[in-house]
């Protein structure tokens, strides 16, 4: 039998030494790992910051360059230049707008509708009105002309006015007229008795000299108006067409906000620009 003669504290000290070693190792591990984390994160942050600075510089350069392009295009001189060119082009282009419109519309005006006046005026920036004044011979043509003008491309509406109905009609019977012969508005019934009818027709007013109706047979420079039994009518065609006029004074006087010339809807003869 072996006898342990060592004091009990010797055993305890040995155990404590192991504990202290473990303590040291654990502490060292903690410190080392902490230092590594700090060093690595600082390194990462430094790299990222450097990278960011480089990229920001590139981005700023790109941004500055881009703004330079904007500055060029938005400078007052370029604005004036663009506006002046735009105004010049629109002014010159507008000189042909009315002739082109009238030439294009002309093909749709039926031959029986003899124009005495043709005008147009803008309503807004998309629609305009063409006003035609002319002569037609009968009520049927008053209907036909509407259908004909509806064929104009872009037509929105066609309206008509001023036709004076002058067609002959069948009157009501009277004691003298038991037949009901056709007469014109304003005329009296024609009697059945042949002698009385002859007297009535002889009594009816009829031209016995040059009447100069509608400027026919007179000064050729004067406008030919309606022939006898014909009517002057006015027809308005509303269609999709921009007839607005560039307004140079308003355009040049306005602040530089847009290159688009100012326009006016005044239009039409006698209206100031």
């Amino acid at each position, binding site marked *: 039998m072996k006898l342990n003669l060592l004091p009990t504290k010797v055993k305890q000290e040995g155990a404590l030494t192991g504990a202290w070693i473990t303590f040291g190792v654990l502490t060292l591990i903690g410190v080392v790992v902490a230092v590594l984390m700090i060093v690595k994160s600082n390194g990462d942050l430094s790299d990222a910051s450097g990278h960011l600075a480089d990229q920001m510089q590139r981005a700023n350069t790109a941004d500055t360059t881009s703004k330079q392009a904007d500055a060029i295009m938005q400078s007052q001189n*370029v604005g004036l230049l663009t506006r002046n060119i735009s105004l010049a082009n629109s002014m010159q282009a507008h000189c*042909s707008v009315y002739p082109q419109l009238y030439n294009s519309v002309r093909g749709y005006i039926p031959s029986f509708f003899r124009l005495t006046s043709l005008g*147009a005026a803008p309503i807004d920036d998309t629609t305009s009105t063409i006003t035609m004044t002319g002569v037609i011979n009968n009520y049927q043509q008053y209907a036909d002309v509407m259908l004909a003008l509806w064929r104009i491309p872009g037509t929105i509406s066609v309206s008509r006015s001023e036709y004076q109905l002058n067609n002959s009609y069948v009157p009501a019977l009277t004691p003298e007229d038991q037949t009901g012969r056709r007469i014109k508005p304003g005329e009296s019934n024609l009697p059945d008795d042949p002698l009385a009818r002859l007297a009535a027709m002889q009594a009816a007013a009829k031209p016995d000299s040059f009447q100069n109706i509608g400027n026919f047979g007179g000064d050729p420079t004067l406008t030919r108006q309606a022939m006898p039994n014909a009517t002057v009518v006015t027809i308005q065609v509303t269609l999709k067409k921009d007839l607005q006029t560039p307004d140079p004074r308003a355009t040049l006087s306005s602040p530089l906000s847009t290159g688009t010339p100012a326009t006016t809807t005044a239009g039409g003869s*006698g209206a100031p620009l």
Partner: protein
Amino acid sequence: MKSRLVIILLGVFLMIIALSYGYSIFSPNESEAQMDNDTAQRAELEGDKLSQSQKRVDLAKKTVAEQAEVWRGIEDQYTPSTNLANGGINIGENAWQLVVDTPKYRDSVQKEVNDQIKKGGVKVLQGPFVTNPPQSGATILADYFNYPAIPFPVVIFDLGQIQVQGNWNQIMTNVKSWATMPRYLAVADGLRIDGTSPYLTGTYNVSIVGYIRGNQIYVPVPESAAPSGGGGGLGTSGGGGFGGPGMSKGGGMGPSKGGIGPQMQGIGVGK
């Protein structure tokens, strides 16, 4: 036994403390680095647009150059010259001389309008009148040349109603010809046709615009006598000599370079 456990636990605690401290530095740094990387990535995308931006600058310069070239073409054909004898006007003259020159210039404009209105072979029934300029050197620039209300001197004549007589083609040609009026920009508007062919009457309105060439301009000059005792005035006390209020800004008889110069150069009007 207990003290050994205490020591080990103490080590564990210290390790945790150290790791916590390390993590407290590590985590924000890594987050910030990540944010920096994200931002850098976006910045990189923006930076990659540098070539596009440069192209935009080049395109802008090219566009401006093209526009300037277009304007030079317009300027050559549709602006009056600076030579009074050739129907133009020299805006660089002093305002007193400008008052003398402008009526002659107005007559040139009227002649050009009269020539233009007959284009197409029409007969003129109602011709327009080009307004006379004011006789005041103090107001002629503002009233006739619209300067400085408009950033550069420009004459604008709203000629009002014009009536011409001819056949259909003559009137159409006449109206369209305003687009090619020499030395001026014109717009014909509101055409109405009346009458019976071949004696049709065309009625329309015309406005014309003349961009005045020049790169210097005089300041307004005084036209009314200076109040007694005041400075300036011709040959009186005060400023003496040519020290009138209108000329003082330009310095003696020298032209003022302000105002018109940069804009006129920029739009290509200046010669």
